């Protein structure tokens, strides 16, 4: 085990104000289960889980309420005991609606002595003796998905196709988003869990080298990890990354730690022999295996200058934002913007009547003076976005093309490669919504591709039905 400095620096990136001091010294605090939980069936990337309870049912903590529904999907378990009051579509933080189970945690099922504390939900496993299949199954049963943001199902990630070998397991502890300190606190306080998680994952992935990526502005976290991993065997390194946004992006982290470049979509990290997992997810895997505790709660940083007491809260997933804010002493002043996630990639929400999910890393309440307004001023071609873009695109050209409804040009300029990190908009002196324009282009390109696919399959269908040979195009030509 050794600590090394990152050898590779990717092009671009920006330096936002991190504002981590608001919550970085606040120890993780467990929040009491709120009276009402709204548990979404779509807390992860991929197909939403299929709801298997109905209004009026009583559920136990840890009971499966949504079943895995497809290959890229995870199950959802009840974060607490309670009564299902309704199953309905609710707005999620990203603006989409998904089925959600509304739980009344105050209701008690008559007769049944509610779940004795201390009894594990799933039988604990000893990772040293358990087989790879058992461990994989446990990760899947526990409903674990990437907790960094996208929520990619961990069981899928840990089980790459046989042709592809995992050479590096990269632990993402960069936490480059401003304000957020959840992963930082986790690394300080639960370093032992992370270590166990790493050993489990290493076993499942067939013994890859391990790289723990942490930004240089978290020396305490680096020290804690060094201590926890001091006596580990095998090829394990802590890689200290320079402070640069978006260091936490999967592709950039792979480059910064092992110097490999993930090709353009649809290539995945495993195509270059890497698996990247967030530190929170690793701790959750350790809990799921050793303690039999599925992923029911997570650490969320509640911060921002409009919150009375910024905190790192351990809350059941499904907790309403309003309850989180109340637990942190309420609002200090009227927030002008509420963000689910960090300031660079988080989602602005219109109401606190939205609930956390397995991927909610932060909740920020910003006052008017912390919030800026976008303008749709003209691009002055200054090139700041070109220099800032970590994907080496030309956001200026893309944004101008999209503004004049020229999505084709945007596509030619590789807009589909954009990771929407927001570095372009961050530095734009004209306050243009470059990232949003990229999103718009991507959305319309995706829609077009979907339409083309539908058309092609319809045409193929039609072709099959036609038994008559079609006259070749040239057959009508000739005579003049």
């Amino acid at each position: 085990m050794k600590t090394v400095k990152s050898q590779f620096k990717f092009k671009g990136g920006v330096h936002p104000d991190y504002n981590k001091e608001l919550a970085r010294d606040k120890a993780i605090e467990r929040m009491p289960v709120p009276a009402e939980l709204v548990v979404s069936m779509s807390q992860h990337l991929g197909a939403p889980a299929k709801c298997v309870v109905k209004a009026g049912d009583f559920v136990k903590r840890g009971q499966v309420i949504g079943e895995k529904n497809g290959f890229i999907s995870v199950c959802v378990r009840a974060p607490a005991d309670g009564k299902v009051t309704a199953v309905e579509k609710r707005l999620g933080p990203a603006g989409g609606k998904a089925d959600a189970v509304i739980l009344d945690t105050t209701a008690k099922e008559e007769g049944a002595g509610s779940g004795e504390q201390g009894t594990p939900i799933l039988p604990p496993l000893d990772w040293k003796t358990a087989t790879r299949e058992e461990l994989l199954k446990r990760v899947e049963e526990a409903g674990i998905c990437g907790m960094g943001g996208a929520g990619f199902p961990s069981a899928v990630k840990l089980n790459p196709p046989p042709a592809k070998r995992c050479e590096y397991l990269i632990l993402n502890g960069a936490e480059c988003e401003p304000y957020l300190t959840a992963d930082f606190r986790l690394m300080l306080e639960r370093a032992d869990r992370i270590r166990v998680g790493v050993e489990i994952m290493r076993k499942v992935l067939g013994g890859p080298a391990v790289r723990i990526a942490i930004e240089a502005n978290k020396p305490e976290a680096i020290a804690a990890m060094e201590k926890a991993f001091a006596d580990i065997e095998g090829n394990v390194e802590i890689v200290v990354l320079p402070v640069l946004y978006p260091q936490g992006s999967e592709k950039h982290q792979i480059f910064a730690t092992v110097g490999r470049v993930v090709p353009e979509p649809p290539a995945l990290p495993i195509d270059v022999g890497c698996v990247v997992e967030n530190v929170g997810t690793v701790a959750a895997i350790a809990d799921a295996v050793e303690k039999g505790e599925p992923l029911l709660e997570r650490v969320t940083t509640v911060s921002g200058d409009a919150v009375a007491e910024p905190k790192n809260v351990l809350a059941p997933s499904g907790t309403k934002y309003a309850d989180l804010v109340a637990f942190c002493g309420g609002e200090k002043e009227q927030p002008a913007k509420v963000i689910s996630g960090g300031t660079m990639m988080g989602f602005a929400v219109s109401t606190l009547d939205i609930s956390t999910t397995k991927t909610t890393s932060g909740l920020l309440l910003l006052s008017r003076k912390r919030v800026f307004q976008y303008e749709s001023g003209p691009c002055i071609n200054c090139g700041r976005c070109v220099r800032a873009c970590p994907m080496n695109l030309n956001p200026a050209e893309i944004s101008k093309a999209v503004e004049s409804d020229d999505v084709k040009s945007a596509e030619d300029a590789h807009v589909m490669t954009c990771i929407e990190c927001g570095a372009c908009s961050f530095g734009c002196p004209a306050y243009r919504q470059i990232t949003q324009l990229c999103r718009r282009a991507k959305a319309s390109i995706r829609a077009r591709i979907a339409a083309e696919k539908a058309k092609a399959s319809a045409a193929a269908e039609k072709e099959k039905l036609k038994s008559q040979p079609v006259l070749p195009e040239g057959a009508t030509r000739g005579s003049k």
Partner: protein
Amino acid sequence: MSYYLVILVGAVLVNNFVLSRFLGCCPFLGVSKKTETALGMSGAVVFVMTMAAAVTWCLDHWLLRPNDLGYIHTLAFILVIAALVQFIDIAMKRFAPPLHAALGIFLPLITTNCAVLGAAEINCKQGTGFFESVFFSFAAALGFGFALVVFSGMREKLAHANPPRCFRGIAVALVTGGLLSLAFMGFSGLVKLPY
């Protein structure tokens, strides 16, 4: 050698056909919306102008002048150039389909183009030798193509601009063309052309 260089620089930069002589403005404005099309058009113009120069020189020197018929050369040139372009179009389609796919669609556009006729006229008036004439036409066509491609790049950029309503479209293109012409005046005197 240096004489041909002078002709080249003179026809491309100093007395650019579009920006200085204002010949061929129609395709300059019409086919400059996209750089790809502009490149195709430039290729076609180079091809036709060079061929036309050769044919008209022969016509002028072997048929018209010996018969003292210089005064009908414009008429004769138009006729011959138009027929030539048509003929090239047909022949190219038959013998060089890829070339036709690249240039063919532009050929009808320049059948009676003033730039093509203009080059022939200038050659005729100067009474230069065969190779000189052909080279001059070739260089002039290169100049035309250069201006066209540069202009197309600017127009692609202008497509994302937001001019006032009354200047949209061809008006703002004309202003741009004027400013481009202004910039090209910087080349004046770069070489002293014989004509």
